[in-house]
């Protein structure tokens, strides 16, 4: 019988789409969950690194003799040996493993390293001269593109707006810092506990780095304290802990970053700045786009933000330059490039709408066809968001004219993301005693992966979630993929749905004779296997499984596979309501509304948490976060959590989430949801601030100083005019 893999219709779902508690919630909230940072292995050593204080330098001399003589120091390892070039401050030069942390820190202090300093650049504020950029080592032209006829489109435009916008470099600031524990049970085997969002990929990366067969590297992780894109790849520290352990005769070596290097070197989201010119007809029809943008992604470059974002402006001319500088490694950061692109697009368009004396909501609706292929979704979402925010009833033209220093305003933005399920494999076993086991090499980075997997299997087999034994987080289980790009829930849900369906069908074949039926007549529901048309002819799940005799059933499920169970491409709309104190410059979020589609929702409770979390992150980067660099020393000035501030509980206001689901959405299959809602807050909040105070604060984060500066500038320009 050919299997038609199709998600059950809404009225057929029992657990899929239901509000279930997070299955790993209890172990986490009781403090019993063990993260990599928490593990204490027998005879474990502690490692720390000597950090290069310069943004760009060559190592000329290393003297480790004093450290080596210290009691308790077990291994000393050069990471960037004499002659090596260092590209950002905080880079490890030498690592030390010792019997305890205080000793490791003492040893680090006892090591003397000398450097030849090289010229560095850590800032990106200066607009690169395009003709210079082509010759300079600090700049790389990443994009030069023209489509349509922008020159004549601007001539036809009745209203043209020009502006300057930007977002800073921000850092991931995972609460569990990057790091790992490596040990060699014997010289042919390496065992690694690592804080990662890529359990399946680490062995190959590490094997390559230390020239050792990946198949002999066992990687395990139960829980990870955040990643957000910065824990997709192996780090130099991961390599160092393995090498230190080898030097130390195989003893476990734990090497976790302190907060300061975590903020300096564990990853950042590139900045983006742009001069943007947009043109439209008086009725709001958007005609033309021109942009010159730049941003820094460190020495590796940072890609270029896809602008104009979401909008298919018919006539465009754009250029982008990468600022190649010594700021630390750029890494994927929840929806890479999109938040920047959204700010660089939605802010100038909001300014254009203001110049047209149009409500931005109407401006978007007027140009809805330019949002192809998701015009319909955006349009529906805008209407839902309008209701939840009361936008149409409450919107006012730019500049809150009410008395008093505190001004209120509304802003909106749109975003998109792919989110198709990744390559995923699972082994699902039904044992004759009725127990069910699912094994896969994926990881739960906080998305609720475990919960989603169990919801799918439980729904398909008709047994409670707590009757299923789920094993993940190990590279000895069937190979899965990294949790990145919002690809996990689609991938694992599809693989497990196929495996559970296959296993169930095999079970039905064994059980059918006992029920005097054909396998195709059976269904699994309510903890029983029964004849679909006659529920009196049934066996309990346990009795049914007993018919397997001595042999378990193991079904392998994979994604991609038969049937369209996952899809890609979502749209989202967010609206922000803010208050701005024009005397202090302080921005307060009153309310945010997030309307998001993501196809079929497996775990609504966790999916909502994803959206809420993304919106809160968005508030955080809109108001507070910025990697502040000092050009003279080349170092980060705010590498601690008082100066690199995250949004706190009192900063987020009222948050409303609406997931688009049901007919028209569910049929598309499961689509990932982590990244998209992170994208819009920057632009939505910036637009709300502009609506409140009547002027644009051109750069994120919207700090009191920047707000006051924008107000003062507008005032002095007003006085001149």
């Amino acid at each position, binding site marked *: 019988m050919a299997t038609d893999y199709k998600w059950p219709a809404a009225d057929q779902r029992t657990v899929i789409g239901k*509000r*279930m*508690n*997070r299955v*790993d*919630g*209890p172990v*986490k*909230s*009781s*403090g*019993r*969950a*063990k*993260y990599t*940072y*928490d593990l*204490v292995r027998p005879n474990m050593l502690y490692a720390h690194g000597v950090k290069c204080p310069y943004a760009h330098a060559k190592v000329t001399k290393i003297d480790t003799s004093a450290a080596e003589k210290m009691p308790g120091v077990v291994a000393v390892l050069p990471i960037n040996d004499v002659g090596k070039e260092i590209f950002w401050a905080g880079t490890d030069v030498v690592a030390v493993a010792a019997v*305890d*942390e*205080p000793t490791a820190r003492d040893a680090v202090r006892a090591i003397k390293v000398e450097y030849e300093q090289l010229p560095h650049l850590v800032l990106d504020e200066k607009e690169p001269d395009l003709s210079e950029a082509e010759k300079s080592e600090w700049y790389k032209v990443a994009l030069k593109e023209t489509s349509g006829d922008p020159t004549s489109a601007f001539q036809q435009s009745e209203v043209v707006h020009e502006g300057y916008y930007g977002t800073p470099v921000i850092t991931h*600031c*995972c*609460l*569990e*810092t990057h790091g790992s524990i490596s040990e060699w049970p014997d010289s042919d085997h390496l065992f690694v506990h690592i804080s990662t969002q890529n359990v399946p990929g680490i062995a190959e990366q590490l094997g390559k780095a230390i020239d050792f067969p990946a198949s002999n590297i066992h990687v395990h992780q139960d*829980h*990870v*304290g*955040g*990643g*957000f894109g910065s824990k997709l790849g192996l780090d130099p520290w991961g390599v160092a802990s393995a090498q230190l352990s080898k030097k130390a005769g195989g003893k476990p070596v734990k090497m976790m970053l*302190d*907060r300061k290097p975590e903020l300096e070197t564990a990853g950042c989201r590139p900045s983006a700045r742009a001069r943007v010119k947009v043109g439209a007809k008086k009725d709001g029809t958007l005609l033309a786009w021109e942009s010159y943008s730049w941003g820094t992604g460190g020495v590796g470059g940072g890609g270029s933000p896809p602008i104009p974002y979401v909008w298919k402006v018919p006539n465009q001319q754009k250029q982008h330059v990468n600022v190649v500088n010594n700021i630390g490694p750029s890494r994927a950061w929840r929806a890479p490039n999109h938040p920047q692109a959204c700010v660089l697009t939605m802010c100038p368009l909001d300014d254009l709408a203001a110049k047209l004396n149009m409500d931005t909501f109407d401006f978007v609706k007027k140009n809805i066809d330019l949002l192809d292929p998701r015009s319909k979704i955006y349009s529906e979402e805008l209407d839902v968001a309008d209701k939840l925010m009361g936008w149409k009833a409450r919107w006012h033209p730019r500049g809150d004219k009410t008395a008093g220093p505190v001004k209120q305003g509304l802003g909106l933005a749109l975003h998109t993301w792919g989110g198709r399920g990744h390559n995923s494999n699972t082994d699902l076993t039904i044992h004759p005693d009725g127990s069910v086991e699912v094994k896969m090499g994926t990881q739960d*980075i*906080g*998305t*609720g992966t475990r919960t989603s997997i169990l919801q799918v299997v439980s729904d398909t087999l008709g047994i409670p979630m707590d009757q299923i034994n789920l094993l993940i987080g190990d590279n000895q289980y069937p190979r899965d993929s990294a949790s990145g790009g919002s690809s996990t829930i689609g991938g694992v849900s599809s693989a497990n749905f196929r495996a559970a369906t296959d296993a169930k069908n095999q079970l039905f074949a064994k059980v059918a004779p006992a029920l005097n039926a054909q396998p195709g007549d059976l269904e699994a529901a309510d903890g029983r296997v029964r004849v679909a048309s006659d529920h009196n002819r049934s066996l309990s799940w346990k009795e049914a499984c007993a018919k397997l005799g001595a042999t378990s059933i193991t079904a392998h499920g994979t994604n991609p596979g038969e049937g369209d169970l996952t899809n890609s491409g979502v749209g989202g709309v967010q609206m922000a309501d803010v208050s701005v104190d024009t005397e202090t410059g302080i921005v307060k979020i009153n309310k945010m509304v997030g309307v998001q589609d993501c196809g079929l929702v497996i775990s609504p*409770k*966790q999916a*909502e*948490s*994803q959206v*809420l*979390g*993304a*919106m*809160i*992150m968005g508030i*955080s980067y809109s108001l507070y976060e910025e990697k502040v660099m000092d050009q003279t020393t080349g170092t980060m000035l705010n590498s*601690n*959590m*008082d100066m690199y501030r*995250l*949004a*706190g*509980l*009192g900063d*987020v206001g009222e*948050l409303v989430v609406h997931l688009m689901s049901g007919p028209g959405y569910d049929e598309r299959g499961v689509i990932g949801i982590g990244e998209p809602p992170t994208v819009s807050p920057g632009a939505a909040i910036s637009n709300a601030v502009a609506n409140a105070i009547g002027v644009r604060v051109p750069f994120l984060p919207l700090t009191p100083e920047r707000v006051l500066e924008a107000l003062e500038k507008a005032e002095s320009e007003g006085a001149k005019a």
Partner: protein
Amino acid sequence: MSDQEDVKGPGISRRSFLKISALTTSAPLVLGPTVLEVEGQEVHVYGPGKTPVTLNVNGRRLSANLEPRVTLLDALREKFEVTGPKRVCDRGLCGACTVMMDNKAVYACSVLAIDAQGKQIVTTDGLAPEGKLHPVSAAFVDNDAQQCGFCTPGFVMATKAFLDKHPNATKEDLHRGLGGNFCRCGTYAGIKGAVAQLSGGGQQKGGA
């Protein structure tokens, strides 16, 4: 400052410091606290080197030889494997290491292990017996007030300490009371819901 003037401190003047007499002397590897008599009062001086430390954690007496500079957080985590409290900022800024010490919420990273002796320390791990959930932890689960969960144990302790003290807290109190804890994944909506549930205000969102 003259030689005679007292420095601010627990009854030790610079002058009298010269007159103190050592009652015990050191053993070579692990040192007990040196007990000094200062103006008739006993003062414990720890280090240099390791010294025996005994902590009362979740109702258990735990002992280890630790350097005096070791924080309560590191002693709990690395010596006693009590890992509910997390090391995140390690300098009293994030709340991830929050524990209760004699019924008060403290940042374990900002207390020395030697100074925590003789106090009742409770961590999230010790709130409820294995297999059971404390109502605060349970409210976090019900309201999905956790994603990666790394900030959660600290938040649970801060919430417990806060609600113990302010059972009828307002929203503004809550913002202040839990303002010393940070979450990177963005679970504040769930946390507000959990607090509302615990303080009888009903759930703000979610609910199984």
